[in-house]
């Protein structure tokens, strides 16, 4: 069993956003005990954009949920932005975008975006971003008072991104957010996500099952292998910034894809 660790390819004095030390996650299911993640050692620097890809059952979503303090690891330790994952979560430093937008259907776009500011009891955040600016940032200006059922799938996902950004999180975790969208919408949202990342400077960890999406978005691509879920590779993507969709035709982009596909096939 190989023990791989991954480090971001940036200068070593940049602060670390996500630090996992020999993290393991095991679940008890009807079919017995499943090892979702095994011996994960990972360091992701602040401000980077990392894509996370791997075959189904490799624990991509589990890894994301460990970082978001949704799942407590069975073994190992987690540090988010220099503190425990729970503290980071309670301080609203983590924004999470799910595959399903999970909007509250009885709330307007604006009310959905503002939801995080109403929650947390005594810990309700005070430093709210301007919801109108955020709604404009995700391209929904003029839709503030629309109800979720009046929006398309892509628009709903934009709302959920604005909601994740309202508390100005230093880290954005995204779990296949565009997986259910059509290709044209997905391309457009990919470009807009890069723009948002450049505007906000937040650290992004982005789970996807599309090689193209992973390589187009990420400064680096983290590859997991399945059964049990473990780190297989961390590859930099050598594309200039800012990126646009036409870069997907560049030979260096195609080389990255070929290389990643080669590694994925051995996972």
């Amino acid at each position, binding site marked *: 069993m190989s023990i791989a660790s991954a480090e971001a390819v940036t200068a070593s004095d940049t602060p670390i956003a996500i630090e996992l030390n020999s993290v393991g996650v095991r679940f008890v299911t009807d079919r017995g005990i499943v090892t979702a993640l095994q011996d994960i050692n990972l360091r992701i620097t602040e401000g980077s954009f990392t894509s996370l890809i791997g075959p189904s059952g490799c624990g991509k979503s589990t890894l994301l*949920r460990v970082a*978001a*303090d*949704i799942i407590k690891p069975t073994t190992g330790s987690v540090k988010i932005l220099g503190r425990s994952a729970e503290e980071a*979560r*309670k301080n*609203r430093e*983590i924004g*999470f975008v*799910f*595959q*399903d937008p*999970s909007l*509250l*259907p*009885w709330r307007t776009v604006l009310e959905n975006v503002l*939801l*995080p500011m*109403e*929650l*947390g*009891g005594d*810990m309700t955040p005070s430093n709210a971003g301007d919801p109108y600016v955020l709604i404009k940032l995700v391209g929904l200006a003029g839709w503030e008072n629309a*109800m*979720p*059922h009046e929006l398309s799938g892509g628009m709903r996902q934009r709302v959920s991104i604005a909601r994740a950004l309202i508390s100005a999180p230093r880290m954005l975790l995204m779990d296949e957010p565009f997986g259910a969208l059509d290709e044209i919408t997905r391309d457009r949202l990919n470009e807009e996500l890069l723009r948002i990342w450049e505007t906000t400077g937040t650290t992004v960890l982005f789970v996807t099952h599309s090689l193209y999406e992973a390589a187009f978005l990420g400064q680096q691509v983290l590859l997991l292998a399945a059964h049990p879920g473990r780190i297989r590779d961390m590859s930099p993507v050598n594309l200039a910034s800012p990126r646009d969709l036409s870069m997907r035709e560049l030979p260096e982009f195609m080389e990255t894809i070929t290389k990643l596909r080669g590694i994925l096939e051995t996972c």
Partner: protein
Amino acid sequence: MVDADSATKPFERSTEAGKLSDDQVWQEFLTRQRRLRWRRRILPAITLVTLLVLWEIAVPVFDIKAYVAPAPSAIAKVLYSKFGLLMSNLLPTAIEAIGGFLLGTGAAILIATLFVYRLTAEEALFPIVVMINAVPIVAKAPILVLLLGNGMAPKIIIASLICFFPTLVNMTRGLRSVSAQQMELMHVLSATPREIYFKVRLKNALPFLFTALKIAAAASVVGAIVGEWIGASRGIGALIIQATYAFDSPLLYATIAVGSTFSVAFFSLIAWAERRFLKWNVANSH
């Protein structure tokens, strides 16, 4: 089906004509929609009037005795002449039905909340609730009259028991129907249990709750009337018994009409509230 077909016609015609402006086509579409809505109201009214007329004619033609089945005109006469008597008997029934409705659905909402947060409570109580619900209401009624006397209390309890079960089952399901991702989102946002209940679970359960409340509204009136059958001097149920024993069929039918009208009105009130408060729930709106 007919409605769906005719609703698409303006578009077909506009392509034929080709000369109409978008605004004209839209206006024509709205006019047709309005006509369809009226048709949906008028057609059942026509059916009802036709049936009443046939009934009115059948009584003299087949020489049906008034105490067997009175003609609609005879019932209408009683509705007019004994309006005061009918209303003074509707009042206690209405109080019992509404009281039972509020008590039964209120208790069901609280216990459903308990079930969702304390699985032990559901495991311990739910089978008992099912057993009590399995006892027919006409069997439960005499027991409650023995326990609580001859006043309004047993009728309110009977009405509330009828309302309780459907509300409990639906509300428990509604409170539980929150998606796993919504709960994960609430966790990431560090929501307190109280916030999750009031901002997510309760709102999410409203479509389920209203389905139950509509059933409960109609059933509460039945409960109150059945309760009055067992022992009451006033109320729609008592008047039904008195009119039956006196072979006063016109009064019996008039009493039933008043009781049914109240039941329909109560149901419609809840249905109106549902439309008013659940605009976001497109799956349920027509």
